[in-house]
């Protein structure tokens, strides 16, 4: 057989018009019809969880737990009387879900042995504040709804969630972005492992209050998606009432291409990953649409299409591919599968370094619980030596040049589901892009996570009463709203603060601090902004360590400087010391840096002394004199006299 899988991969990548993101232009995105929307999750900074009185924000290590609890999830009917697609898929996987609970962070509510308590008012109010900032239409009554999750990430099998507002709008500096809704919900468990039929979760994060801000799919380029994600993050943080740090805000990114399907990339925790992920997902869909075209051309009648399978008698065959040898050792069943008319499809490009065969393999892992490597196909783009293994397989089937083959392996109990899974994924290729959620990888590609659930999985929560939101209550909350984000942008511009500081300042919600320092200490916002966004950011990057330092210390530091009439340049030194030793008071820091109080005259006389000391070896370098003196005088002058003043003195 002359067919070269890797060549085909490269050829198809080119044929669909794939371009790397760094080379992609707005025209490329227009060509494939890039469309994206966001669901931004943000944890709220509350003392307790949303529906019970456990503390929020205390985390455990995976092996640090007090008890284990096991549950299985079973699909239930939606209120419209149907089973949800995801539900059925999850049921097929027959997973045993293990929860590792710790007394400190989980009570009987988390594990679904107690009905919910009343909603945490602190959380509700923060969420309403943010809903108002997003200009959403606030509901009259909050209805707790159950959103089914059968993956086990929530022990009840559903997440309690409620809409607070619909139809809002974000004011970005250069445009507006429409919002569909904002909901308040309980966070899910953190996954520890997922191997075979056993998935393990920790329950510390479970039940923590979270908001989800959902945008319309209005974003037309990957960079725009990131920009909007950042904006929502800044807006949430502008309240000062949300959690920051790893995992405290996560994005689900919806992507589709022209003719594609809405696919959800789940749990993107870094906004900087968004452009690459959305770029690749859009092209993956574009590739799947090409695959569809090809198949519809290649297959005479897709409605009659089906796969053929044969169990391989492992005694009769000699395999060279290592995972197969291992599988035989593990007493797995080895199944050969014929995919009629699929020649050229399995090695068809889908994402950088990945092809259609991966789509099948990933589903085998998730749906049939077959750990990878779980299959090999005769169009593997990495292993050419696989050909001899497949030569033994072909005679088992009525094979033609147009057919593709794969071999998979697994425990007896999982074979039936696995075969169904393979056939189902292939048939979905005739339709184009399957509805699914995908997991983000750090290299910018994604893998199959589960079938995308529909609105069918929403149920009213019969355990909790609706919560009315009266006008008086909302008015009270409206009074405590922070300054809107677009006003903050304006402020920064009016203060002449350099634009390269904006991201840092907004990400850390520092504009209120700058404003306070400006009003109370009369220090210029520009100075404080660069002190924070340049100097402090630099220090943070350089000394990556755990510190109890907080931004309010900068206020105290500047207050200390003002109070003692030191010069402001001292701030650049003090801020580093304070960051490294937040527990030290400023007097001790001054002592530790050997600060000596000198008046202007003393320093001036020292300048004179230095002048006489500077004997240039080369008369031409006379102008270096100034720099030399400045360098010598700096440690002495800082905090006492502004360097600008010294500079003028030397020039005299």
């Amino acid at each position, binding site marked *: 057989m002359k067919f070269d899988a890797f060549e085909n991969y490269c050829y198809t990548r080119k044929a669909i018009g794939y371009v790397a993101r760094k080379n992609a232009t707005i025209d490329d995105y227009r060509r494939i019809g890039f469309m994206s929307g966001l669901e931004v999750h943000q944890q709220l900074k509350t003392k307790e969880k949303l529906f019970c009185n456990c503390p929020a924000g205390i985390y455990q290590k995976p092996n640090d737990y*007090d*008890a*284990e*609890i*096991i*549950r*299985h*999830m*079973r*699909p*239930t*009917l939606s*209120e*419209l*009387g149907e*089973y949800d697609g995801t*539900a059925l898929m999850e049921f097929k996987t027959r997973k045993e879900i293990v929860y590792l609970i710790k*007394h400190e962070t989980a009570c009987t509510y988390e*594990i*679904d*042995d*107690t*009905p919910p308590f009343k909603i945490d008012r602190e959380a509700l109010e923060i969420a309403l504040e943010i809903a108002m900032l997003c200009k959403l*239409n*606030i*509901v*009259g*009554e*909050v*209805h707790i*709804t*159950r*959103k*089914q999750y*059968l993956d086990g990430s929530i*022990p*009840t*099998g*559903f997440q309690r*969630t*409620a*809409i607070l507002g*619909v*139809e809002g709008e974000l004011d970005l500096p250069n445009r507006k972005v429409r919002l569909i*809704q904002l*909901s308040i919900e309980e966070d899910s468990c953190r996954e520890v492992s997922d191997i075979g039929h056993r998935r393990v979760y920790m329950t510390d994060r479970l039940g923590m209050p979270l908001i989800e801000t*959902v945008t319309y799919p209005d974003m037309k380029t990957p960079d725009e998606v990131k920009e909007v994600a950042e904006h929502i993050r800044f807006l949430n943080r502008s309240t000062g009432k949300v959690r920051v740090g790893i995992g405290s805000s996560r994005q689900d990114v919806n992507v589709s291409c022209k003719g594609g399907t809405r696919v959800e990339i789940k749990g993107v925790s870094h906004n900087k990953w968004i452009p690459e992920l959305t770029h690749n997902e859009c092209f993956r869909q574009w590739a799947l649409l090409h695959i569809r075209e090809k198949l519809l051309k290649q297959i005479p009648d897709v409605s009659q299409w089906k796969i053929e399978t044969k169990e391989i008698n492992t005694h009769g065959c000699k395999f060279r591919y290592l995972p197969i040898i291992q599988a035989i050792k593990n007493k797995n069943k080895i199944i050969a599968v014929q995919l009629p008319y699929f020649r050229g499809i399995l090695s068809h490009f889908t994402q950088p370094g990945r092809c259609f065969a991966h789509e099948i393999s990933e589903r085998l892992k998730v749906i049939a619980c077959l750990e990878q490597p779980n299959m090999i196909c005769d169009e593997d783009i990495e292993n050419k030596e696989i050909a001899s293994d497949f030569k033994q397989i072909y005679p088992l089937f009525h094979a033609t040049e147009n057919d593709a083959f794969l071999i998979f392996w697994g425990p007896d109990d999982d074979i039936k589901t696995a075969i169904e899974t393979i056939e189902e994924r292939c048939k979905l290729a005739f339709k184009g892009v399957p509805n699914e959620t995908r997991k983000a990888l750090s290299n910018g590609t994604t893998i199959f996570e589960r079938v995308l659930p*529909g*609105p*069918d*999985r*929403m*149920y*009213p929560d*019969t355990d909790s*009463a*609706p919560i*009315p939101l*009266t*006008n008086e209550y909302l008015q009270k909350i409206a009074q405590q709203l922070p300054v809107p984000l677009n006003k903050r942008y304006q402020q920064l511009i009016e203060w002449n603060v350099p634009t390269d500081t904006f991201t840092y300042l907004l990400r850390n919600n520092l504009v209120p601090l700058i404003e306070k320092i400006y009003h109370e200490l009369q220090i210029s916002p520009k100075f404080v902004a660069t002190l924070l966004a340049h100097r402090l950011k630099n220090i943070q990057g350089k000394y990556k360590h755990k510190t109890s330092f907080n931004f309010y210390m900068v206020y105290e530091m500047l207050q200390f400087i003002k109070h003692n009439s030191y010069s402001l340049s001292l701030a650049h030194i003090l801020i580093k010391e304070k960051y490294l030793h937040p527990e030290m008071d400023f007097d001790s820091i001054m002592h530790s840096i050997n600060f000596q109080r000198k008046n202007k005259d003393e320093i001036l006389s020292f300048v004179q002394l230095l002048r006489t000391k500077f004997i240039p070896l080369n008369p031409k370098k006379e102008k270096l004199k100034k720099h030399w003196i400045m360098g010598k005088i700096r440690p002495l002058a800082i905090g006492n006299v502004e360097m600008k003043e010294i500079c003028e003195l030397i020039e005299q």
Partner: protein
Amino acid sequence: MAEDIFKGYKGRALEILKTFNVRVWGQAIIKTNRGEFKGTVLPRAENDDDMHIVVKVATGYNIGIDVSTIISMEEIGYKEAHYKIPEKEFPINPKNPNVKLFGTGGTIASRLDYRTGAVIPAFSPGELYGAVPELADICNITTEKLFAVFSENMGPEQYKKLAIAIGKEIENGIDGIIIGHGTDTLSHTAAALTFMVQNPPVPIVLVGSQRSSDRPSSDAALNLIHAAITAGHGDIAEVMVCMFGPTSDEYGFLHRGTRVRKMHSSYRSTFRTLSDTPLATVSRKDGVKPIKKEYNHRRKDRNVIIKPYFEEKVSLVYYYPNMQPDIIDSLVDNGYRGIVIAGTGLGHVNKPLYPAIERATKKGVHIYMTVQTLYGYCHMYVYDTGRDLMAKGIVPAENMLPETAYIKLGWVLGQTDDREEVKKLMLTPINDEITRREPYNGYLVYQGGVPEVEEFLRKFHK
């Protein structure tokens, strides 16, 4: 019915819906002074206020709209939802045992009723099969809905009806019986059936669920599967309660109907056997595995004895310090014929009650003493006070659970009023309501925080 298009709405909300001519299940655009909302108008739970209209928005969420903020409403479409559990014909396999499932109103498989927010049980074999298909591999199920009452409304009428129905099924040759039941009074019914259905040749299994089956993590399906295994294949021919062993989805316990009690308001593993071990465990993997060595084995004969009697004028009094004698007096004056007291410690009440007790006994009221500690025996000989009480006519009921004693006294007084005969029946155990010994592992209420208990928790599923 004309008003049916406004399901559950009343007062101001109903007025608004009528004013703008928008029906329940109508898709509406609602303009309010909080902005515009769009979605399907849903029925409203009957007990909720008349100030809000419930709407399902496109994303599947429900929201409430304050009627005082509504400016206008417009119906732009209509789509009624039909709640139905998929009904598939229950496949009969002649090799499998035949099991009868009696419904009393508990929730095994269910769907939601929007108006009340309650769950409506699925019940027909087809519905059951649609919800729990695994059942078909275990047994052939036929069902009969005897009544639909909440657990707390189960009473003597229902006990008697159930006993008679069970007797009939046994005569007809059934291999096992399951009774679906709400959990709150499950153990009361279990005790009643133990007394009313004696010497059964097949398992009689009461089962319920602590989490309604409209949630994915419900214990209903697994409890039902366990019950089906017990009824169809188990060797224990007694009245049993089948519910979760640990709170984890692992195995179920089979409890003797007379020694079992609900011990937690919401846990899945709420049912415990007190002062003894459970009868057996049951799991999909290992079937019924007896823990107790002695039990009544399954038989081929049909020699069951049905005794459907119950005197309703019996009361259970939970004693507390400073209880006034008029509590007892008023029961007597109201014609009560039997009183079970749950006394303190080994079975005591305070002195001021003595005259009232004496008076009651003289009037022919039968008084039995149990312990509110639940575990352990009533030992009225230990202190003088106890001896005084017995002299006044109180009979200690050994280690009978207070609720079981209540049910038994009702059952006994339904048959006789003769003091000695009542006493004989009360103190002769029918199925371990009184045990002669209390094994050491019958009382295991561990306390957290102790290293060895914490170690146990970590290693085994609670």
